[in-house]
């Protein structure tokens, strides 16, 4: 390996890593007999930029928000961020029927309780 080759290699740019600041969005949590309902503020996030994963009792919500910019910035309070939040999901949640809708920058996440998880009376038998 010649010396010039060594120099050329060392000048390659480093791997580009995600540099968006991670922000925890505010969340309201509600519950009724049928489901747990989350309201998450995600202003400026497109539907396609939201990823919701449920695995091993953990619900991971992550979304990327990029704000369009044009011209000279006079001031900037809204930044490009990655929204990220992780919730512990009780086992009684029917993972297959979780649904979500997005309206006006608010994500509504419905986590239905599975039928089997309702309160149950245990009958005691005498042996």
């Amino acid at each position, binding site marked *: 390996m010649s010396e010039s080759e060594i120099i050329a290699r060392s000048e390659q740019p480093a791997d580009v890593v995600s540099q968006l600041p991670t922000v925890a969005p505010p969340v309201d949590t509600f519950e009724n007999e049928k489901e747990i309902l989350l309201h998450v503020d995600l202003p*400026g996030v497109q539907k396609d930029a939201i990823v919701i994963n449920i695995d091993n009792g953990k619900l991971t919500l992550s979304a990327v928000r990029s704000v369009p910019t044009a011209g000279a910035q006079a001031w900037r309070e809204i930044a490009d961020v990655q929204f990220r939040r992780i919730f512990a999901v009780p086992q009684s949640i029917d993972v297959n029927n979780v649904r979500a809708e997005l309206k*006006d920058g608010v994500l509504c996440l419905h986590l239905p309780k599975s039928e089997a998880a309702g309160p149950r009376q245990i009958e005691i038998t005498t042996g």
Partner: protein
Amino acid sequence: MAHHWHDIHHLFGAMDFFRNQMNSLLQDADRSYITDRSWGIRDGFPRTNLSDTGDNLELFAEVPGVSKEKLNVKIQGNYLEISGTRLAASPEGYTLHRNERVSSSFSRSFTLPYEVDATKVTATLNDGILKIVLPKSEAAKPRQVTIS
């Protein structure tokens, strides 16, 4: 007595300075939407971006959960006011476990760097972001100067 007052005043001045420093630190970092609101007064809602594209001024405001009907935009000369109501109330039949989203009416006003033509202003609301395009008034528009 006057001497003591001066001391107290001095102390508060130092506290204000510290708070401003903390505010600018947190505001810049955009870290947590929850914690940075507890610093100082909550007068920064909605957050906004303002940019100058030559002929227009463009203002973006972050208004999640606010519908079109609940927003008001008022313009007079170079004065702009955004106000509205944000409802984050419990949906029917649900009990609340945890409440982090703020539900209140808000109002924020700005002095724009230029006079704008109020009749040509357009506002659109998309995914919780309000975009207002404010065309500069003729007098404030950039103009090419020919050199003789």
